[in-house]
């Protein structure tokens, strides 16, 4: 079993190009930053230098979008080698990716595509996680996806799949509360049942993000502030999972940094509020 994921209590933000200057020049009040791994899996240049300099001030989480852990034909060794090189340089707090697939054979969709939750998929995903964790020399976190279709072949709920995946591989969990809300709305799942089905001791990080109402479905756009329903679900999640690394994930329509810091303050107050209630009881 690769080195287990540490626990970490704190609040962070995604480090995006629009805020590089803020993070280099100021003491931004966050406990960690998260970056998209692939943006820094390069040979050199300014972005990598900026990441190294930010790393001197803050713990960094490497969050990938292209591992394609659900690919039936396995993982790409060249990808794992590049990610390992970056991880060795940055010494991240966590290395994470998504429970989804993007690539099959030579085609890479660059989208986080859904998986049927079957024993066959579980075997494939666990084999791939074992390979990734071995290649990286450390345990990873995997994030629950948002999805717009589900498969007739599925024999278990998403949360049951995730719990078993984590049990078999030792991987930690990155719980995206917005994704739970989006998928629950799109598929008619019970979001509370979802939370209750997640093994609390495996959760190491929480993502909070915004979404968009499409014609028929909620779309996971990450271009909006966190909405009230997701905040409510987060309040329930934090009561169950306790202090874990929590962050606002904004990938598009990036606002000025103070707006994101204000959202982090809401996250803090919701968790502190819960802790106060628990203490009073």
């Amino acid at each position, binding site marked *: 079993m690769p080195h287990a994921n540490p626990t970490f209590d704190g609040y962070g933000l995604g480090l995006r190009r629009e805020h590089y200057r803020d993070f280099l020049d100021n003491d931004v009040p966050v406990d960690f930053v998260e970056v998209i791994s*692939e943006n820094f*899996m*390069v*040979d*050199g*240049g*300014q*972005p*990598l*230098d900026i990441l190294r300099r930010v790393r001197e001030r803050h713990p960094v989480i490497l969050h990938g979008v*292209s591992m394609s852990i*659900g*690919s*039936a*034909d396995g993982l*790409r060794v*060249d*990808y794992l080698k*590049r990610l390992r090189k970056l991880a060795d340089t940055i010494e991240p707090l966590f290395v994470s990716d998504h429970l989804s*697939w993007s*690539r*099959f*054979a*030579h*085609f*890479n*969709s*660059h*989208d986080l*595509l859904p*998986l*049927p939750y*079957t024993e*066959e*998929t579980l075997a*494939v995903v666990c084999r791939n996680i074992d390979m990734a964790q071995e290649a990286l020399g450390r345990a990873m976190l995997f994030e629950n996806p948002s*999805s*717009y*279709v*589900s*498969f*007739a*072949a*599925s024999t278990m709920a998403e949360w049951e799949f995730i719990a078993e995946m984590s049990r078999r591989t030792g991987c930690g969990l990155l719980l995206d509360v917005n994704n739970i809300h989006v998928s629950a709305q*799109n*598929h008619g799942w019970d979001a509370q049942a979802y939370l209750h089905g997640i093994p609390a001791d495996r959760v190491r990080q929480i993502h909070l993000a915004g979404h968009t109402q*499409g014609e*028929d*479905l909620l*779309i996971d756009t990450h271009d909006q502030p966190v909405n009230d329903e997701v905040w409510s679900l987060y309040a329930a999640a934090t009561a169950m999972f306790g202090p874990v690394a929590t962050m606002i994930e904004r990938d598009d329509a990036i606002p000025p940094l103070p707006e994101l810091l204000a959202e982090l303050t809401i996250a803090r107050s919701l968790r502190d509020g819960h802790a106060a209630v628990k203490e009073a009881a």
Partner: protein
Amino acid sequence: MLAEMQRDFSDWLVRAGDDDGLRRGLVATRGLAAYQNNYRTQLVNVLRASYPQLKLAMGDEAFLQLAIHYIDRQPPSSWTLDAYGADLPDSLQALYPHNPDLQELAWIEWTLSEVFVAADAAALSPTDLDGVDWETAKLRLSPGLRHRAATTNAMAIWSALQDETPVPEAEMLEAPAGLVAWRQGFISRLRQVDAIEHAALLSLQEDGHFGALCDALAERLGEEPGIARAGQLLAEWIGSGIVVGVSH
């Protein structure tokens, strides 16, 4: 089963055709369109981000048609989306076979993005040059250095678009030239060079020896002017970070 689903899903994303086969395996199918839309929108957006000046030069509609042509023929395969636009010049060639200016403009944009994240190299310091025997010295070029022949005023067009100044009409250059891109520190550089400098860089990339470069320039320009030009080029290349190492 999983492999078959992934193969069918991939084919459906690429071909955007009949989704009956996929639908049979799904509980709810109304979300399929979201995946098709995400796939195509993302690829168009990444091409726009990779080629902003080409898009300006062509106009939005013509660029969109170019992107559609490319997306239909070139499904992404790399692990990084940043690599997706590498072969866009193939579609430019197919749709605009008589516009070398567009080819060269695309080369400039793509190459500068590659140079931006190329391997780092420390600049030469004056002490690195102490006691160098230039007869036998071997020059090391910047790891990000890229070059190609230039036949049009694409660099002038690119510069005007970049600086938001009046854009010149596309025209052929009076004499063959070269385009050279590299990175100096973290700054990406682009220069149009004459055919002699371009040939000199080519020979240096192949051989590396400054002595061989002197011989080639002496043969082309005559002994004295050739040696003088080699010395001038060397000083410029070291000063601008094109040459980053000298071994002797």
